[in-house]
């Protein structure tokens, strides 16, 4: 026992915990996979952020790019939950380290503990808000997208700083053996016995927990896992074989979308063409297999039938290479109107869909017509489209 730690304090000290399983050998190995998960979530998060900024260039291929990227984002975040819990369990005694007395050491000690506190806070924040968001639960007042993005930078910044500080310890632990004989010099005060569990068994258990968390949820985006994922936020069902994110009722468009007065207006440089639902149906149509992939992580592939955006832009003689503002019948919401960048507007796969899975588009999927483009977040696949304005 270290000389400073008296056994009868109210608070436990670092040496109150058994050290056999809570070793750097375990913490570093779990930490590597936790780091991989956070790195994946960060990179795919940046991709998703870029996809939602119309001023940032974003490719239209691969068609399934955003589906895979955002699916990975949510899957890696979910896998990180058990990894983070075991990592925190392994280093929990560090919470009770007594600060040094000398002022210089104290300063370094406080700085490191501060950075760890930021790391833990940001990591828990990202996983908790991300999981709640995937279930469309918003028990907070802040903007989810802006905050999850900012705290993502905070988590990765604190994580990389942590790796920089601990690098010699990490490399030593990873290069060294996993199994180490117990250090007999330390006699725990209030020992938490781990029984016959070996470090190897603890690691296997951790990987199992991460695997189960993924299998239980990933069916929302991986069709092969639909029957396995008993905790998935979507079973994958819905009209035309595709789930719905926001219903016509919730968007307040039921009356305007079904009204005989509905018109689609296409405008460019003072020219305006107005189409009824029937006239829209008379234009040349194409059927494309495209995924719809929501920012919340679920996705599904559908057979969309509709008119190419480019065909509609020809009606007002708009040149190639122009961006388009797509406006919905919705009166509220931040995605009521979106900007479709020029490369998406020109793409032959980008449709104003009027049908899905061989049936007319259902009201909740955006009747009379909705945007569907390759490699694009679902929030930007505007439903109940009423107006296309060519941006010049």
């Amino acid at each position, binding site marked *: 026992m270290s000389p400073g730690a008296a056994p009868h304090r109210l608070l436990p000290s670092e040496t109150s915990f058994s050290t056999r399983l809570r070793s750097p050998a375990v913490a570093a190995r779990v930490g590597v996979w936790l780091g991989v998960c956070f790195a994946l979530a960060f990179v795919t998060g940046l991709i998703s952020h870029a996809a939602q900024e119309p001023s940032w260039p974003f490719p239209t291929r691969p068609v399934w790019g955003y589906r895979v990227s955002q699916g990975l984002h949510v899957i890696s975040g979910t896998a990180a939950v058990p990894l983070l819990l075991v990592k925190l369990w392994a280093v929990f005694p560090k919470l009770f380290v007594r600060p040094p007395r000398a002022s210089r050491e104290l300063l370094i000690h406080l700085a490191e503990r501060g950075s760890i506190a930021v790391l833990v806070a940001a990591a828990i924040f990202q996983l908790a808000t991300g999981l709640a968001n995937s279930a469309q639960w918003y028990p907070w007042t802040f903007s989810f997208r802006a905050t999850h993005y900012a*705290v993502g930078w*905070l988590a990765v910044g604190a994580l990389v700083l942590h790796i920089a500080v601990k690098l010699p310890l990490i490399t030593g632990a990873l290069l060294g053996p996993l199994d180490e004989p117990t250090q007999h010099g330390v006699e725990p005060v209030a020992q938490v016995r781990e029984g016959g569990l070996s470090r190897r068994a603890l690691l296997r258990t951790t990987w199992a927990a991460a695997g189960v968390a993924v299998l239980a949820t990933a069916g929302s985006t991986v069709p092969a896992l639909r029957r396995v994922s008993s905790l998935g936020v979507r*079973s994958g069902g819905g009209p035309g074989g595709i789930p719905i994110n926001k219903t016509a009722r919730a968007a307040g468009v039921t009356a305007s979308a079904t009204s005989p007065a509905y018109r689609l207006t296409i405008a460019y440089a003072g020219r305006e063409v107005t189409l009824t639902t029937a006239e829209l149906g008379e234009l040349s149509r194409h059927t494309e297999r495209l995924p719809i992939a929501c920012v919340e992580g679920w996705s599904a592939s559908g057979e969309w039938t509709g008119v190419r955006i480019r065909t509609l832009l020809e009606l007002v003689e708009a040149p190639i290479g122009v961006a388009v503002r797509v406006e919905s019948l919705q009166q509220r919401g931040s995605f009521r109107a979106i900007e479709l960048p020029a490369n998406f507007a020109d793409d032959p796969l980008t449709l104003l869909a009027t049908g899905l899975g061989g049936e007319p588009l259902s009201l909740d999927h955006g009747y009379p017509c909705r945007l569907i483009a390759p490699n694009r977040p679902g929030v930007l696949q505007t439903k109940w489209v009423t107006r296309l304005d060519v941006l010049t």
Partner: protein
Amino acid sequence: MRAVRWALGGFGLAAGGYAGWLLTRRPDDLLAVLAWLAGGVIAHDLVLAPLVLGVCLLGSRLLPARAHAGAVLALAVFGSITLVAIPVLVGFGAKADNPTLLDRNYLLGWMSIGALTLAASVVVAFRDRRGGT
């Protein structure tokens, strides 16, 4: 190694600074964000961690040594699945007009994972006894 550490540390501080700048650009949100950041740490350090330590202590006293590995498996798998399942179990995101969202029996799903985990931990306990470890 020294240069790598300085480079990583520099990137980490810069990324953290950028995050701070992003957060202060939305001053109306700041207080709630800070409360949620602190709340997560408090929920883990003062509630979840002591709870898990208590369960471990209790388990180590009540269960025979050969059952420990299985019990830890059950705690880690089912404990983390329970946390992951909270949003779908409480179902506050469900909407009456949208039957395609949160459209599974989550209580049943959660309990089946519990049953499978329990079965796996029993198998582990018996395998460990046979193996004589």
